[in-house]
């Protein structure tokens, strides 16, 4: 087993993972740049790497990013990424009383433990799930993709109706190009560019990065002022204190929060904010101490442990079933597809070496995160002083060059810009962009399996209700729908 996990690891991969973790931590620490944005910018450059190295880089960014968001949340009262909003709530209190290093230590150690627990669960659950997933035929795969997309739209923050509109827009875009069964050209309007279908990478870069750039361009920004010592000695002292706190008084909280993160992460569409919110509320209820310092410590640990353990949870449906849970795993899935690997229930059985390689680089990433979060913390603390006005032009240049470098096509830059603007207005009008992107990525597989199912059943549309696995998937989807409706009625009732 160890051979399988670490057989492919070499110095080159370790350097790539280290760079990924470093990049993830620094971009997540900078307010205004989300992990998804930073990963989407990197995506075209992974095109020139081998599949495991590209996945190692992106997984490093994912791991580093989940813990990096806490740095700015604690130090400057601005969460680096949405998942750190709850860390910000109590973490900044420690900075105000001069214990910023202790809070940073709590957040970083909780993140490392959360990531590690997520990895353990991913390792055991995904293998078992993959054994079951072999039974999936065209009908089951089609139902699974359908249920995954519906769940993402249903669980996304905001109006589910708008999320479904966004989803169908994405599905309609995925039908452009050759039909997956008979290779009939569709919606190409005689344009050669459209015959190959719309590539999701320029769209992904545009939709994740451009709204962030536009938002920062049109908004007035304040300079970041930081009055905390950035010396390594004070960081180490804070770390040791935090280590004592976690291993002596917060073991249970860390484990419970991590478990919440893993479970929430495994449900498509939920994301790190929900995981962090639930674990924060649970920690608040469980903690019985009268000591305010102890309560605040628990409330820093809980969201950080859960949003980091979510990385492992989110990878379970992504690797075993081919259903990405959020924007970050959608980018990871995109990286797999760039390298010709087909995500889906058969991914692990047909690419066992790659799968174990991914688990191996993930574990190495966690170890590197633990090292970097101690040694490079002073550097990250300095880096968050960089104003966004320096960063946004660089991100834009990254986006344009990255998109252009993919196929040396100006049309790709047009697509990136058009969809970037579209995303900007979609977000302003309350339409989430995640369902659109997931539908665009999974649309091809969805249509292929849907048409295959119809051919197998000689055109019987009720085939999806006749197979036991597909019945079970639809039943789960139905239960989620009922739950969501019940919660909405409950909210309305409470408001009235």
């Amino acid at each position, binding site marked *: 087993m160890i051979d399988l996990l670490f057989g492919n690891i*070499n*110095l*080159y991969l370790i*350097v790539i993972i280290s760079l990924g973790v470093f990049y993830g931590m620094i971009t997540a620490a900078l307010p205004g740049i989300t992990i998804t944005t930073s990963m989407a910018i990197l995506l075209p*450059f992974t095109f*020139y*790497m*081998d599949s495991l*190295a590209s996945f190692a880089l992106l997984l490093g960014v994912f791991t580093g990013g989940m813990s990096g968001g806490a740095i700015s949340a604690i130090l400057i009262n601005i969460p680096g990424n949405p998942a750190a909003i709850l860390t910000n709530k109590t973490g900044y209190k420690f900075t105000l009383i001069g214990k910023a290093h202790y809070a940073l230590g709590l957040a970083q150690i909780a993140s490392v433990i959360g990531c590690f627990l997520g990895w353990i669960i991913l390792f055991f659950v995904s293998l078992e799930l993959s054994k079951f997933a072999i039974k999936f035929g065209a009908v089951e795969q089609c139902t699974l993709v359908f249920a995954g997309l519906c769940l993402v739209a249903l669980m996304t923050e905001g*109006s589910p*109706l*708008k999320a*479904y*509109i966004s989803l*169908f*827009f994405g*599905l*309609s875009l995925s*039908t452009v190009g050759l*039909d997956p*069964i*008979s290779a*009939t050209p*569709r*919606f190409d309007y005689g344009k050669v560019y459209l015959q190959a279908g719309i590539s999701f990478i320029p769209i992904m870069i545009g939709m994740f990065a451009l709204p962030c750039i*536009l938002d920062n*361009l*049109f*908004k007035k920004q304040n300079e970041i002022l930081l009055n905390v010592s950035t010396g390594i000695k004070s960081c180490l002292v804070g770390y040791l204190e935090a280590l004592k706190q976690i291993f002596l008084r917060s073991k249970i909280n860390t484990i419970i929060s991590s478990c919440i993160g893993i479970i929430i992460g495994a449900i498509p569409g939920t994301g790190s904010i929900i995981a962090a919110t639930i674990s924060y509320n649970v920690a608040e209820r469980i903690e019985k101490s009268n000591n305010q310092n102890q309560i605040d410590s628990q409330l820093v640990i809980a969201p950080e442990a859960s949003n980091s353990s979510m990385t492992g949870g989110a990878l379970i449906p992504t690797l075993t079933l081919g259903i990405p849970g959020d924007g970050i795993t959608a980018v990871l899935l995109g990286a797999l597809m760039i390298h010709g690997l087909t995500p889906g229930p058969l991914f692990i059985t047909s690419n066992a070496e790659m799968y174990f390689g991914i688990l191996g680089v993930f574990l190495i990433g966690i170890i590197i995160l633990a090292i970097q979060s101690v040694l490079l913390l002073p550097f990250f603390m300095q880096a968050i002083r960089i104003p966004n*006005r320096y960063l*946004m*032009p*660089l991100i*834009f*240049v*990254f986006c*344009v*060059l*990255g998109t*252009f*470098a993919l196929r040396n096509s*100006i049309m790709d*830059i*047009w697509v990136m*810009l058009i969809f970037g603007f579209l995303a900007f*207005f979609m977000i*302003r*009008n*309350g339409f989430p962009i995640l369902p659109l992107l997931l539908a665009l990525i999974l649309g091809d597989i969805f*249509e292929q399996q*849907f*048409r*295959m199912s*119809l*051919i197998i059943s*000689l*055109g019987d549309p009720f085939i999806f209700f006749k197979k036991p696995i597909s019945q079970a998937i639809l039943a789960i989807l139905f239960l989620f729908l009922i739950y969501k409706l019940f919660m909405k009625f409950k909210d309305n009732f409470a408001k009235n």
Partner: protein
Amino acid sequence: MIRFKNKESLIFKLFTLSYIIIYLNTSLKLGYNSAAEGYGPGIFPIIISLCFFFLFLFSCILKNKKKETLNADQELKKNDYAKFFSIIIFPLFFINFLGIYIYLAIVLCYFNFKYSISFKVSLVFTTIVLFSIFFLSKLIKLSLPIGIF
């Protein structure tokens, strides 16, 4: 302020509706096979366009019940729009004439409008040279995966 939001959401709705109509019209023209052959390449786009249309209709009906407002800081100035479109989008039409570097130089100058001309020029030059060396050079692309270690 609210009027602006309404105008924006109206444009958005019109755009969506015209997209659905074009999409539905094109999917109706696609070929169809018998049921035993899985209905052909048109079945999936038709289902999507119909679902898309009904959801859109439903959202328009529901929208009338709720009135959405926009915060002052969310409002975009027409000036910002005009500047952005003329500097980012307009030169793209002439990219074959300008080349990607000139285009990026214009964009960078626009983003760094707060600085003096000499600083702007040196910033643009350094950025483009660095990006060119690190990301567009074929050497680095080929040497990274296998060559270095």
